[in-house]
């Protein structure tokens, strides 16, 4: 293995370059990704109203501690995930970038709310039209502001993404050659339910996943279902 191919800007740490490929590598990858998923410490970047919902998500009722994320780090050097919550003004953009640069690798960015994601309704000269203009964004979360469940949904989708991240350039190439569908957009309440997940994937293959989510949401609203397959309710 040649050192010239190593991408030091990626999320690799170096050790994976010395490991044998194949069976061991994928298992180490699973283990490393699992540890990264299970203690994803967020950096606080609350800028506006979304920050209130972010605080609510961290508090007792929604309790991010269930996912090992209760410690919102005030120092970016101890954080893995930057949750940009709120509208980013042009003046704030360099600050945001600096905070991001101070975070150690591997790091992820979650654009919370429409303002952080795209500028939202503030299409004007003062507001950055999406934080992806200054930092790479891993998860976009719509909503104005998103309710705590929406933030948890976005975080869990990000967890799912991290679990499938390649470890090192060799593995990245392997995955790029044989791309696997990981269904990032699957709603978390469906992903955490085996029967519902099966139904959703079937629906997604039929190109009606959003209709399925809608039907399931309606079943939840009617009180017919909290978990399990939608098929049972329909009968």
């Amino acid at each position, binding site marked *: 293995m040649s050192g010239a191919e190593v991408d030091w800007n990626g999320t690799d740490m170096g050790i994976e370059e010395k490991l044998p490929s194949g069976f061991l590598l994928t298992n180490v990858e699973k283990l490393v990704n699992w540890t990264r998923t299970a203690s994803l410490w967020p950096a606080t970047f609350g800028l506006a109203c979304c920050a209130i919902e972010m605080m609510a998500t961290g508090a007792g009722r929604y309790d991010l501690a269930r996912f090992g994320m209760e410690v919102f780090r005030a120092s970016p050097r101890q954080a893995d995930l930057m949750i940009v919550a709120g509208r980013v003004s042009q003046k704030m953009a360099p600050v945001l970038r600096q905070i991001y640069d101070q975070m150690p690798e591997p790091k992820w960015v979650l654009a919370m709310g429409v303002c952080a994601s795209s500028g*939202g309704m503030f299409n004007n000269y003062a507001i950055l039209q999406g934080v992806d203009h200054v930092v790479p964004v891993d998860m*976009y979360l*719509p909503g104005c502001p998103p309710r705590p469940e929406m933030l*948890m949904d976005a975080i869990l989708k990000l967890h799912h993404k991290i679990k499938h991240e390649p470890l090192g350039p060799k593995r990245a190439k392997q995955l790029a050659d044989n791309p696997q569908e990981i269904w990032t957009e699957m*709603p978390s309440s469906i992903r*955490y339910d085996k029967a519902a997940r099966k139904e959703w994937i079937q629906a997604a293959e039929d*190109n009606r996943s*959003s209709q399925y989510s809608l039907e399931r*949401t309606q079943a939840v609203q009617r009180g017919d279902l909290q978990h399990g397959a939608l098929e049972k309710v329909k009968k």
Partner: protein
Amino acid sequence: MPSLGPKPLQGFGVTFGNMFKKVTTESYPEDKKATKPRYHGRHVLNRHPDGLEKCVGCELCAWACPADAIYVEGGDNTEEARFSPGERYGAIYQINYLRCIFCGLCVEACPTRSLTMSNDYELADDNRQDLIFTKEQLMAPLLPGMEQPPHPMRLGDHEQDYYVGREPIKQTAGAAAEAHSVPPAATAPASGDDIGVDADEGAKPLGETRR
């Protein structure tokens, strides 16, 4: 709590006491709680009871949108390809969920109650492109008795049969003829209960509600 000992022990007493209190934490991904029925979730484009689209492509929602999140292009219905009763239908309909602030002004603006909001909120995704929802994603699911457009009008020969309340199943030749003699007052749109943001339609089986 009355004083039971030195101050540090009292502190532990609070912790100990809390161990027997009911937990208020919601276990979200495993148990999804119902939202309030009028919660502003993502939009739905409703259908008439025979499956034809309610959207007439008037773009009033796009005009009402404060965030410019909606893009509509109308198209003409033809006898070969009919998507909605009447002349026009929404040929292209997109909502950019990275702009939408879920205010519901579009729902207020919609003259045919085509656009309503559901209670579905799990929308996050990892790229901008997929968060621009197209018409195929926004259309309500087909209920029993509905048929995917394009197809001819099943509930009568005239668009009035759709907009003036009629029983969709008891379709007889006499009833169809009667439809053309509806007094003009009955054709007036939007009765009082339809004004305002209304997510109730999302809570009921979609398209079943008749105006």
